C-alpha cells in the first residue's frame, strides 16, 4: 500500500527494516546456525524500536485511534507492546552478555513471530486508519516530533 502521510511512510519503512532483520534472524535460528553478530544487531535494533517506535505509537498514535472509534485496534496493539517488551527485555539482556546462549533461540523465534504478527496488524489496521485520521498539519507535527525524538 502507498501512503500519503509522511509519518506512515516513516513507520512503514521502519516496519520493513524490522521484518527484514528479524526474518534473517529467524532463518538463521531455524537452520540451527545462530549468528552472534546478527543476534547483537537484532538486540540493538529491538532496544531502539521499543524506546522510540513503541513509545511514539503509545503516546501519539494509539490515543488518536481510540478517539476515532478504533479503540479495539489501539488496545490490541498496546497489549502486544507489553508482551513484546517483556520478551525483548530478556532477549536483549542475554544477547548483550552471551550471544551464543542457547536460551536465545526460543526467545528469538518467539520474538520474530510476535514482531511479524504485530507489524502485520499495524500495516493492516493502524496505518490505513491514520491515513484518514491525520490532516497535513497533524502529519507534519507528528513527523517532525518523531524524527527529532
Amino acid at each position, binding site marked *: 500500500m502507498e501512503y500519503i502521510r509522511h509519518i506512515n511512510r516513516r513507520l512503514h519503512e521502519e516496519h520493513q527494516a524490522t521484518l527484514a532483520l528479524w526474518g534473517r534472524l529467524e532463518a538463521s535460528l531455524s537452520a540451527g546456525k545462530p549468528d552472534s553478530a546478527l543476534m547483537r544487531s537484532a538486540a540493538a535494533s529491538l532496544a531502539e524500536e521499543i524506546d522510540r517506535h513503541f513509545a511514539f505509537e503509545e503516546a501519539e498514535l494509539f490515543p488518536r485511534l481510540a478517539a476515532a472509534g478504533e479503540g*479495539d485496534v489501539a488496545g*490490541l496493539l498496546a497489549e502486544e507492546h507489553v508482551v513484546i517488551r517483556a520478551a525483548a527485555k530478556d532477549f536483549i539482556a542475554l544477547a548483550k552478555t552471551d550471544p551464543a546462549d542457547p536460551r536465545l533461540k526460543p526467545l528469538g523465534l*518467539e520474538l520474530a513471530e510476535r514482531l511479524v504478527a504485530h507489524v502485520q496488524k499495524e500495516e493492516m*489496521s493502524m496505518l490505513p486508519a491514520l491515513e484518514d485520521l491525520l490532516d497535513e498539519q497533524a502529519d507534519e507535527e507528528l513527523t517532525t516530533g518523531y524524527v527529532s525524538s
Partner: protein
Amino acid sequence: MFGNVARSRLLPMSLPFRYFGAAVLFHVAAWALLLPVAGEFADFQAGLGPVFAALHLLTLGVLAMAAIGATLQLLPIATRQPVRSIGAAKLLWWLLASGTLVFACGAELYLPRLMAAGAVAVTIAFAIYAFLLARNLLGARGLPVVVAHGWAAFACLIALAATGIALVAYYEHGIALDHSAFRAAHLVLAAYGFMGLLAFGLSTFLLPMLAVAPSPASRISYVTLGLGVAAITLGSLGWRLPGALLGLCAALLHIYSMERSLRARLRSPLGPAFLLIRVSWACLALSLVAAILMELGHAPARAGLLFCLLLIPGWLLTFLLGVLQRIVPFLASVHASKASGGTPLISALTPVRLLAAHRILHLGALAALLAAVFFEQEILARAGAAAGLAGALAYAAFFAFVVLKVRNHGIHPPHQPAPA
C-alpha cells in the same frame, strides 16, 4: 434499512467464526454425502440427487459461506469501512445456513419444491450480502484494486442469483428456458465470477500480508481484472472458447503477479498453506485448459466432470482451505489477546500435524477423484471420497482445536454488537 453499525472494523469473534464453523461442517457433510454414491460419481452427468446435493453443499455451504465470512472481516480492513449492520450479517448467516441445508435436502430427495424453499432463503441471504457489500464498497477508501474486484464480484453475484432462480423455476415449474445454457452461465458466474473475482481481489491484499511480501503491481491487477470480467461475460453469454482463452490469460497473469510478489517476501518460510494455494492456482489454469479442449473437441471422455472437479474442489475449495488455515489462527489470536491480557502466538494456534494430515488427505482425494473420472475407476472414486471425508474431519478438528484453545486462553469472545 438495518441498524447497528459495527463500532470497529474488527468484528466480534463470533461473527466471522460462525461462518467459518458452518463452512467446516458443510465441508464434512458434502464428502459424507458423496461417499455412499462415490461408485456412480464417474458417470455423473447432471440432474438432482446426492452428487448434485453434495456439489451445492460445497458451493453454497462451504465456498460462499466462508467467502462471505472472510469478506465481512477482511473487506472493512481493506476499504476502511465498518460492516454496516451486525444484525444483518447475523441474519444473513441464518438464512444462508438454513437455506443451504434445505436446498441440499431437496436435491438429495428429488423434491424440487423443497429445493425452491431453500433457494428462496439463499437468495434473500445473497441479497443481504449484496447490500452489505455495496454499502461497504460505496464508502471505500484505500486499496482501489480490491474495491474494483469487489464491484465485479457484486455484479456476478446479482447475475448468478438471477440464473439460479431461473434454474429452480425450471426444475419446479418446468418453465421454458435453455437449461444447459443457463446452467453453464450459472456455473461461470458463480465459480469464476463471484467466488473467483473475490479470491483474486482479496489475494492482492491478503496473500502479501500473510507472506510478508509487497503487494503485486496495481497495473497488472487491473489488467487481470479486465481480462477476467471480459472472459466471464463472454463465457456466461455462451461464447465459451473466447471466454476460456481470455480467462486463461487472466489466470496466468494473476498467478504470475502473485508469484512475483511472493518471491520478494521478507520472511523466508512461506508455510505449508501456500502449497494448497499453489495447487489451487494450477487447478484454476487446468480448468480453463480443459474448457478450451472441450470447445475444440479435443477433450477426453467425461471432460465436463474433470472440468468441474478442477474448478470447484480443485481451484476454489483448495484455495479456501489454504487461506482459512492461515486466517483462522490469526483472527483467533487477535481475539484471544483482547480479553486475556496476553497474546497467544499464532504458531500455538496452528496444529501442524493435523494440518499436514489434512493436506495429504485433501490433495489425495482430489487426485483420486480426477483419476477415477479419467480412468473410469469406481474404486478410485470411493478412495477419493473416503480421503476427502477424512480430510474434512481433520480440518474440522483443526477448527475445533483453535476455538478450544482460544476459549482455554480465558477469553470470552464479545458476542454483543458494539453500539453505533
